């Protein structure tokens, strides 16, 4: 139904093998992940590293993981948009790694997890240099949102104001703070909501009604979650088909310069 389906939240890479909890898919390689995308009818996955939780693959600075994303993008350029993931606490090393990802790997965005990596989104010394690179390269940032005290949506106010040209995705529609995340998306033109995983269909509908269908982007959290179920939630909502198309893919296609198939082009707002 949708013109293009873009999953704004896909994890892949070798460090998934460190995870003790069961996964829905094998997403260690680009090839395996493409099979999961195909199964759910996803055209393009925005892919970044899973969280590093120790184990056999030693990759606390995400270098191995970013390399895997680069490989997947090189192998399947039509199926993946790759984002870098870094730990901002590494300071210069994190900035260097991100620059390496942009210049050498041609990755097209930055994923950060303030709770897991332990930093405040208000921390200018750690975060602003990375955001400046996003502004310079005209690429989005995407953040895990949800969990006190480092991931409440309101903590992103200074970042959204300081970098008005950088699209900022708030993942999981802010989890337990989904109402606050919706407020952020209504207040800031550059703030978008992403539906990954735990967002309920009621919350997704509320986000679309209050922030607008042009501010909500489908994401699944693959391989922790079945993307087909998240898509089904969005398709089942009592909203116009053109709004579903925006949420399922057109918004993220626009934000990430993903080319549309010919039929879809007329629908873009």
């Amino acid at each position, binding site marked *: 139904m949708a013109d293009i389906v873009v999953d704004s939240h896909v994890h892949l890479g070798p460090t998934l093998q460190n995870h003790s*909890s*069961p996964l*829905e898919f094998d997403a260690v390689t680009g090839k395996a992940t493409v099979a999961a995308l195909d199964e759910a009818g996803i055209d393009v996955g925005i892919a970044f590293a899973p969280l590093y939780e120790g184990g056999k693959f030693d990759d606390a600075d995400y270098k191995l993981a970013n390399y895997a994303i680069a490989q997947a993008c090189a192998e399947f350029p039509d199926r993946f948009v790759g984002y870098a993931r870094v730990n901002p606490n590494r300071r210069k090393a994190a900035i260097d790694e991100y620059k390496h990802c942009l210049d050498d790997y041609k990755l097209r965005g930055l994923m950060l997890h303030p709770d897991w990596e332990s930093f405040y989104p208000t921390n200018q010394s750690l975060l602003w240099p990375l955001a400046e690179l996003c502004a310079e390269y005209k690429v989005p940032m995407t953040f895990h949102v949800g969990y006190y005290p480092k991931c409440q949506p309101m903590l992103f106010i200074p970042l959204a104001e300081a970098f008005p040209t950088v699209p900022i995705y708030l993942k999981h529609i802010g*989890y*337990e703070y989904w*109402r606050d995340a*919706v407020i952020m998306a209504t207040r800031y033109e550059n703030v978008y909501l992403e539906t990954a*995983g*735990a*967002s*309920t*269909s*009621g*919350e997704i*509908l*509320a986000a679309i*009604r*209050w922030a607008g269908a042009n501010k909500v982007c489908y994401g699944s*959290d693959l391989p*922790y*979650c*079945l993307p*087909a*179920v*998240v898509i*089904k*939630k969005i*398709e*089942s*909502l*009592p909203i116009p088909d053109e709004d579903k198309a925006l949420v399922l893919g057109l918004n993220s296609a626009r934000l990430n310069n993903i080319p549309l198939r010919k039929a879809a082009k007329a629908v873009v707002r």
Partner: protein
Amino acid sequence: MIIDAYAQMGPGIANHASQLIIPMHDTSTPEGLIAIMDRIGIDRSIVFAPKWVGGRFVDPDYVQSNRYVADAVKQHPKRLVGCARVNPNYGADAVKELERCLGEYGFKGVMLDPEWENFHPGDTALVYPLLEIARAKKAPVVFHSWYAPSEPALFWKVATDFPDLQIVIAHMGGRLTVDAALIAERAPNLNLETSDHMYRLGPFAKRLGVRRILFGTNTPFAAPEAELYKVTVRKDLTSEEKDLILGGNAARLYGLG
């Protein structure tokens, strides 16, 4: 047989129009609910009043809503299973209302919402008298579970204090599914209902045992198609296991023929 263990119906639905989470379908009447059931392929629904959020229909003690559910069940006995909803903060009046629901109305279960009604599930003065009535009638008690004070941990002591009462933790504990699963593993009378839960249903069900998982939709506040699909799409559950989750377990717990 597919049984929805978590459906909401009655005149209180209309009050929700101004809320952040709005009804996706009009289930203010039994016909509205049954139309959705027919469309999705649900045979029976365990039905209770939506939370009272203020508005034109004034019913904070759920007395009118329960009577409405009772009438609906009388009209559609093959499709709807009545479930009482009471507000424990009404004390003796809540006790009286629950007795009427499980007696005169013949309801099969009880739904309590600690988050909305703002009570502690382990409150021995307000909640335990209600649980005693449910136990005497062999009626399962469904607790909404999401934000505090309805997080899964709070049902652990309740389950231990009422070992012969079947308790259903709705939404698999919301975003605290791992907590819910850890506690349910240690309290055999705890069951988990699936609506609005998202991550890794199959592995959770397998680990706890599929007999402890009940399919629910949270109609009309969630998309029922997606809630059903979430179970049917899984490749790690056999069709027998899916049958139990989709209806067999609810039939056993609620004594439905």
